């Protein structure tokens, strides 16, 4: 059983499920490994006829089975009826006649020497959560870290991850959003300087084939299979992870069969809480790392704001709030529920200060504008919910325009409020909800913040 193989091919394919036609290796090398039994091929999409002749498909890469997300056509390649998966199309089309490959040879052995270079100290709450998380990892049960915004969630993960790496385990930190991955990458690189680490997101190529610690958007996990000994899902309640079943499948598929999947979030959904309480453990942290309470929301009516804004007028209360921020030289974020309205507001607000900008998910300069705000080059940003989490800016003040809109559910409002007062030197700030009528979600968010500040007791 000592067949020769190329270690680079093993490192790349071990734990992955990949298109046969699109590997970083030549066709000859891949073919040789298939012949020697090191690589196994599977059909990309399996088509089955049901009891009544209806066709059902399943994608082997993303495990999508939704008939709406398959298109069948007459294929010139396999010269017959074929179907492809539209759910994971962006990673290269997978159809009935496409072949996917998986590694069947001996697995990669990962190094067991890793240093943890983080020199901060954990608060006693963080330390307890960190120990509980490691305990769960050893016992292979899922664990939820439910910690308020600004309590230092990432630092809690360092100790358990380090211990797993030293045991030669392969680890993944996944998040539904690219922004979160981009924010995490430099912090983890600094904390684990001797570990092979890679960040994977749409548009990033696989460079370090044998990375032991992988940061990835949940979408990227479609391309992994039985790869990880533990997965930490950060911001587990963010869109689209909760909305798309296939992403949850993808995380499960990327983990080895007995490997635990842990969740980290400030605003777990009721479903996540009840699910995890059945099979796993929960650590809750109610205090921010600096010990100050979360800033509670302030309600301010802004009647008919959408009518005024679409006419290019800024409602008085909002105008005063922005002028005040500009006078006091405080950076600010204004959240909107809709891009079109935000763009109208941007024009009007730029009459007050021309440096103000607006960002949304499809905005080309979105990363740059956030950096400019952090560097103090621009006084404030208008944004959609894309900046509701993961962003830390010193002394930031936050307003929500149209807080009664359904996109701002209680979780989103708690997250938005969590942007305020994250720094020791500026532990509080203004968190104002401009509304056209108070919604249940607003009250729910206010109650939740009160409850957390009271130490988790029922208010």
């Amino acid at each position, binding site marked *: 059983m000592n067949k020769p193989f190329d270690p680079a091919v093993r490192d790349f394919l071990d734990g992955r499920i990949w298109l046969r036609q699109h590997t970083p290796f030549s066709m000859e090398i891949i073919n040789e490994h298939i012949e020697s039994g090191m690589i196994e091929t599977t059909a990309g999409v399996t088509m089955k006829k049901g009891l009544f002749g209806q066709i059902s498909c399943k994608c082997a890469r993303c495990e999508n089975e939704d008939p*709406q997300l398959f*298109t069948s*056509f*007459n*294929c*010139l*390649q396999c010269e017959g009826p*074929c179907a*492809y998966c*539209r759910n994971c*199309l*962006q990673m*290269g*089309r997978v*159809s009935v*006649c496409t072949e996917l490959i998986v590694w069947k040879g001996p697995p990669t052995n990962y190094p067991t020497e890793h240093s943890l270079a983080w020199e901060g100290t954990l608060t006693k709450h963080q330390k307890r959560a960190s120990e509980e998380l490691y305990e769960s990892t050893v016992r292979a049960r899922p664990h939820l870290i439910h910690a308020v915004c600004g309590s230092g969630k990432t630092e809690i993960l360092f100790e358990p991850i380090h211990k797993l790496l030293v045991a030669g385990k392969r680890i993944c930190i996944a998040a539904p959003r690219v922004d979160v991955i981009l924010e995490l990458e430099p912090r983890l690189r600094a904390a684990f300087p001797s570990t092979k680490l890679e960040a994977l997101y749409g548009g990033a190529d696989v460079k370090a084939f044998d990375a032991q610690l992988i940061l990835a958007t949940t979408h990227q996990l479609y391309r992994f299979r039985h790869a990880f000994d533990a997965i930490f899902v950060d911001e587990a309640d963010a869109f689209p992870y909760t909305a798309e079943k296939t992403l949850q499948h993808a995380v499960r598929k990327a983990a080895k069969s007995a490997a635990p999947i842990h969740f980290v979030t400030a605003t777990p959904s009721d479903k996540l809480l009840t699910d995890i309480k059945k099979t796993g453990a929960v650590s809750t942290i109610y205090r921010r790392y600096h010990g100050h309470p979360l800033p509670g929301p302030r309600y301010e009516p802004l009647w008919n704001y959408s009518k005024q804004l679409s006419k290019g007028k800024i409602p008085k209360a909002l105008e005063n709030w922005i002028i005040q921020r500009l006078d006091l030289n405080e950076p600010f974020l204004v959240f909107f529920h809709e891009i079109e309205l935000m763009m109208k507001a941007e024009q009007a607000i730029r009459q007050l200060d021309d440096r103000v900008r607006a960002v949304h998910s499809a905005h080309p300069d979105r990363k740059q504008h956030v950096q400019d705000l952090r560097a103090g080059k621009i006084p404030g940003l208008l944004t959609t919910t894309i900046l509701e989490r993961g962003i830390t800016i010193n002394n930031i003040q936050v307003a929500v325009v149209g807080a009664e809109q359904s996109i701002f559910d209680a979780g989103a409002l708690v997250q938005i409020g969590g942007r305020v007062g994250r720094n020791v030197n500026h532990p509080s700030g203004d968190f104002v909800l401009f509304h056209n009528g108070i919604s249940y979600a607003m009250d729910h968010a206010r109650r939740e913040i009160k409850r957390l500040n009271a130490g988790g007791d029922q208010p």
Partner: protein
Amino acid sequence: MNPCLLCMKPISEVASWQSFFALEKKKTLCDDCSKRFVRADIKEEGDVLDAVHSLYEYDEAMRDWLHQYKFMQDVALAQVFSNELRRAFSSNDTIVPIPMHPERARIRTFAHVEKLLDGSKRPYVQLLTKTNTSVMGEKSRHERLNVEHLFELVPGAVVQPITYRLVDDIYTTGTTLRQAATVLKQAGASRVEAVTLIRSIQK
């Protein structure tokens, strides 16, 4: 209800008598996505090629669509412009799609121009074949203008002295369409017009 083909969000549709009796074709795009495509209707005239009608300009939205359709091989996107393409023809037009080389079509797994016409439910006749596997999109402007003999007639094809309407996805320098028109005219076509989905204007 099927989701939007481009952004995957659910499409909101207003129930009407037309939709109830299936007189109205189901929408394939949501309102936000369909708003991105603006009709340009560019019409040009020439000698070899008597007239060209291009439905859209080559803008960002079109570039994304074409990329996803042709290079990501998303066959489903052939449906997006089916209504527009159907209305660009009348029922007695003789439609001739620009062919792909069979080898290239096999690699792509579908012939993109024919799939567009299939979506629009217009019948067509394939009178031409491509003689080589060269790809226009990979050539420079100068090379494109100087290629010769791209097409020939399908063996046994009969060309009548009538008007033929060629169809292609994109019209850039016009070499492809002019060469196809030349072959048809030499075989006896009295007039050759063309309809392309996109007009790319070179700067």
